[in-house]
């Protein structure tokens, strides 16, 4: 298990997750979604750098979620 901090806007949550927990898992997690209020269309950043969904989140990482831009429907 490892600890990560996820931030969305002014809200943040610190939580213990499995060792193989990825950025994509975070984006799809109902627990994090409910706590922080983000939807399906997000991107993840660590220190301002966008992360890919398949990358495992390092222990102690502070992950910022942002609403991703969508194209015209």
């Amino acid at each position, binding site marked *: 298990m490892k600890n990560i901090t996820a*931030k*969305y*806007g*002014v*809200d943040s949550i610190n939580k213990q997750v499995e060792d193989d927990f990825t950025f994509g898992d975070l984006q799809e997690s109902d627990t994090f979604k409910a706590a*922080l*209020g*983000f*939807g399906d*269309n997000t991107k993840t950043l660590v220190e*301002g750098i966008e992360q890919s969904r398949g990358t495992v989140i390092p222990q102690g990482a502070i992950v*910022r*979620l*942002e*609403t*991703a*831009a*969508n194209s*015209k*429907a």
Partner: protein
Amino acid sequence: METTEILIRGDGTLIERRVHERILDVGQSVMEGLTEETRRGIRNVMNLPDWGVAHANVGVNDTLWSVAIDRISLDTKFRLIDGVLVPAFTAETDIEMPLVWPAPKEVRLVFAVQIACCYLAVKVEGNWLFAFDKEKRGYRLPLPNLHDDCLICTGNFDSHYGSCYEALLASLEQFRKSEWNSDLMRNLEQSQRFFRFRPTDETFEVLPIDAEDWTTLCNKVSTSILERVVI
């Protein structure tokens, strides 16, 4: 100049740290590189007639302007449901009219404009409409013509102007006069619970939002643009 520091670690070990400092003679390009991501918020930069004060968040390459607005012009199609007039946005059979929706005090609306400098002019990079709660959380209103990140779909719009003042006024005027259609529509029911009017003999009474907490009808948003908004 060299300074020596003696530190005590948590385990009781004593550490000597020597710090050597010298002033670097760096050029302007190095300074600009180091401060590329540095931005400064400046309040009350200019007053916009009929709209109010514009605040700025100034970066090296652009400025994000924030204007607190207190109303939204809803020029669109409306439908009467149980005596309440609500936006329908699409239906050809519904009534088309311009109604002004004054925002209740708990909904803090901010119109944001990103402006970049270019040769002998400024360029509007985008317009955003955000709603903030009292804790300064940002939300996307239940409106069409708004992308998920609250970027406004402005349609045809001249992006080059002689000054930031002109660019801001043009952006706000475009926002005021634009018709709302069904592009990027998410949930019509949420729109109809948010924007409500009651026809009276001579005018339209604005009804309260049909929810205990207005944010439940919106989508919470977090973006790099929103973080630059000066409220």
